[in-house]
């Protein structure tokens, strides 16, 4: 259908009374399929498997290493050793000739053949909340609607597969974990803490026998509520959600959230930190078919003592990031998993009187790897003098378009929002240099 005709029809559909929309059977079925009830039936599972095969050439999952607070590009992926703006930060060579990382990324330097850097991201959002929104959704905050984060789009668009656990996960969620936005809160990331601890709320409070009794009691109460309200009650999906929650509670896949049964050497490679364990758990979850995992490492907001802050955090980030890339590659998962690493903005080239760097959205970096994203590329350059002029500037939306394209999702696909406004998944342009569609 022509885009315009589609729009007209979509607008016409929206003029129908809401009740019909929200209760229509098609919508209910659609919703149930999207939220994962689909896997409950064998036919759906077969279909899902086939869909899985068909799209094997594309990436299937995303891991976002979220550096909350806004890391300095100069102390991470875009060092300018020797320049005044480096303020003494040195750099190391990597396995790619001519590409340097800031000192401290010794492990990552060895993996750079698989990693690409975008050094020329520019945005207009210099506030933490707004910047986080932009980088996680690819859109600037809009008072009229909430955009879905990339993980939510993944779950919305890609087949479910035999997954009994949430397909969108946020490990060590910061203040603003990824959300489903207009796609619905069923696409919000499932929040969980350090993998050394139990996943919250998945263990029954009482022994199995008593739980069974409780559930049958619950059914008695629901049976009294149902008569005369069948239509509306079905639309609530309350029962279906309980079924899924129970399936999750009893699922062996829950083990993927924990890292205690990994060999000590593997754990050590990732680093004995909550973030390191989070990255390891991310790999385990991806193996189970989870679509998107974000792992947060917070504390990059270095308004004071910038260099010390970065030195401390890079000791956590470097082993975890590098081990994740190597581990995914060894397990042949890297081809199908896009790994992103970055924060909401960069930091000022000029160091302030408190030895800190302030917010700087005018030229910052993000690292990408896997999932068909070509490794070893460097996009753009920032000004060694610290000016706002950036060579080959790219928008955050371009990164989103790149990831979506790698996943086989058309960034220009227009989704109708509940308020009746068609929205593209991304308004950016995929970065062609990073996409190698030959795999």
């Amino acid at each position: 259908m022509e885009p315009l005709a589609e729009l007209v029809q979509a607008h016409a559909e929206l003029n129908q009374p809401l009740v019909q929309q929200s209760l229509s059977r098609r919508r209910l079925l659609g919703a149930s399929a999207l939220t994962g009830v689909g896997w409950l039936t064998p036919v759906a599972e077969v279909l899902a498997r086939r869909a899985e095969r068909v799209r094997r050439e594309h990436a299937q999952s995303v891991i976002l290493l979220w550096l909350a607070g806004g890391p300095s590009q100069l102390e991470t992926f875009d060092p300018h050793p020797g320049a005044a703006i480096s303020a003494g930060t040195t750099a190391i060579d990597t396995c790619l000739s001519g590409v340097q990382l800031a000192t401290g990324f010794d492990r990552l330097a060895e993996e750079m053949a698989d990693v690409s850097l975008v050094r020329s991201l520019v945005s207009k959002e210099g506030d933490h909340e707004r910047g986080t929104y932009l980088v996680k959704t690819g859109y600037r905050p809009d008072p009229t609607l909430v955009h879905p984060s990339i993980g939510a789009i993944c779950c919305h668009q890609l087949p479910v597969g035999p997954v009994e656990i949430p397909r969108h996960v946020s490990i060590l969620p910061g203040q603003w974990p990824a959300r489903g936005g207009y796609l619905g809160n069923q696409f919000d990331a499932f929040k969980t803490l350090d993998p050394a601890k139990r996943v919250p709320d998945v263990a029954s409070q009482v022994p199995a026998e008593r739980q069974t009794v409780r559930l049958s009691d619950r059914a008695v109460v629901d049976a009294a509520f149902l008569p005369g309200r069948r239509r509306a009650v079905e639309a609530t999906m309350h029962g279906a959600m309980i079924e899924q929650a129970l399936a999750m509670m009893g699922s062996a896949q829950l083990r993927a959230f924990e890292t205690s049964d990994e060999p000590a050497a593997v754990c050590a490679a990732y680093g004995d930190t909550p973030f390191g364990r989070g990255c390891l758990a991310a790999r385990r979850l991806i193996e189970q078919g989870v679509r998107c995992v974000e792992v947060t490492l917070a504390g990059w907001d270095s308004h004071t003592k910038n260099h010390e802050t970065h030195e401390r955090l890079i000791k956590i980030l470097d082993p975890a990031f590098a081990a994740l890339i190597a581990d995914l590659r060894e397990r042949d998962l890297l081809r199908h998993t896009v790994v992103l690493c970055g924060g909401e903005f960069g930091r000022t080239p000029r160091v302030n009187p408190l030895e800190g760097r302030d917010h700087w959205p005018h030229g910052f970096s993000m690292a990408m790897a896997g999932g068909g994203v070509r490794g070893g590329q460097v996009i753009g350059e920032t000004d060694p003098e610290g000016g706002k002029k950036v060579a080959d500037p790219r928008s955050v939306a371009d990164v989103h378009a790149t990831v979506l394209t790698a996943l086989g999702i058309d960034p220009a696909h227009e989704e109708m929002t509940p308020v009746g406004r068609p929205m593209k998944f991304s308004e950016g342009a995929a970065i062609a240099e990073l996409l190698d569609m030959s795999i």
Partner: protein
Amino acid sequence: MWARNLLFVTVCLAGLAALGGLLSPVHKPPAARRVAEAPTAADLQAAVSRLNASFAPHAGPTSRAANLTIARRLSLALTGTIPSLAEIREFEAQPPDAAIDWWLAELLADRRSSDYLAERLARAFVGTQDGPFIVYRRRRFVSWLADQLHTNRPYDEIVAELIASDGLWTSKPATNFITVTIQPDAGKGPDANQLAARTSRAFLGVRLDCAECHDHPFSKWKQSDFQSLAGFFGQAANSLRGIRDADRPAEIDDPLSGEPKRITADVPFAADALPIDGTPRVRLAQWVTDARNKAFARAAVNRVWAQLFGRPLIEPIDDIPLADESGTDGTPEALAILADDFATHCYDLRRLISIIALSEPFAAESRVAGDDAAAADTLATTWNVFPLTRLRPEQVVGSLLQACSLATLDYQSHIVVRFFRAVGQAEFVKRYGDSGEEEFSPQGGTIPQRLLLMNGELVKDRTKENLVANAATQIGALASTDEKAVEIAYLACLTRRPTSAEMQHFVAKLAGTRGDDRRQQMEDLYWALVNSTEFSWNH
């Protein structure tokens, strides 16, 4: 040394005072310029009858819900929680045909209602974001708004103050409406475009901002309409003395280039209501709230309707067709009736709430006879069946805490109870997932929500054995019979009595139990009630 000790003591005292202030908002009635006359019963009844008549042509075979069900709806809408057992007892002591009027009056006078309504309105006015540090105080804003609502200040005055106030965000809390759009990090003052979008959506129910970047293909709004409206905020600036209008031509950011652009302020409709004199924001405030600008009252009516029903009269809530003199604007007659009444009665929010709350649609059953799906759809569109709507996170946690306490949790509660309630509530809402500004989107629940109610700490804590704090234990120990115990648990959790099948099922389980066994049975009963569909959905 002494100075340091003194400083330490002062800091501690200030901290305590601040904490006290947090838990008990200051009641400072503002000087209202005019006060709506309290409606007489007959006058109110006449208005309700006019509203009911507008629904009559569609009337279907539905019946009136039980009084207790209506009481639950009212409590959830106005206070964000279910009635306590103590309140239910008082409610049932009233003569049945006067009980709803009595309960409505009680709730409208309750400070909890002002606080809850203020929070809900604030979501439309300033959003849910924390906003810029220092220059924006959301909590201050909400408590100011609650104060205004508590004195039933006319709605037009409140809105005019939001738009036109000058001053500091602390001493003049209304200015937070402006300061929330400041981006200090980017060195930017108030954002005229965001303010215009908020103003048109929240106060007028018009989506002018769809034309922010280009002319909208499906509506009559042009980009110039939006930019001219934004022009009224184009001089607003922040300084050491707070928000004021700067002495320079109005400028807005061009949405496409991001460059400043000079603009002449103008309004997109009802131009005769725009005064010629005054500062830009004062003129805008007068235009927005002028009786000739019908969109203002209509937007308020749609929002209050949504507050009570969980679903607006016109969907989406902020996209209402402009009033059309011929009466063929496609909106339900109820909208015009309520908007006219609201405008001619001093924009009295309590009166508006009362008319809707006492109407037939609000009292309608949420069941349809024979479970006929087609009939259910038809009756729902004509408001002859009460819609099932998902409770908001704070309504769920409010209901949970209230169900687990037999006494009413309100401003009379012990400070410790209130403190733990506030803390538990915040943690729960965080895990449950706030739906943010998307107040009335028809979404189903989520798996983490079900996990939280089935396995979460709060449910466990509030239902386990605890004779001092937990209703489940108290009921098991103190109810005179098993039947009474089951009945009280149902009243406390679901605001109704059990059906005979339910009674039979649970009494059989309680029969002959004592001690730990009985406490466990009560805990299980509470668990089942709290995890039912009925508990998490307004109906």
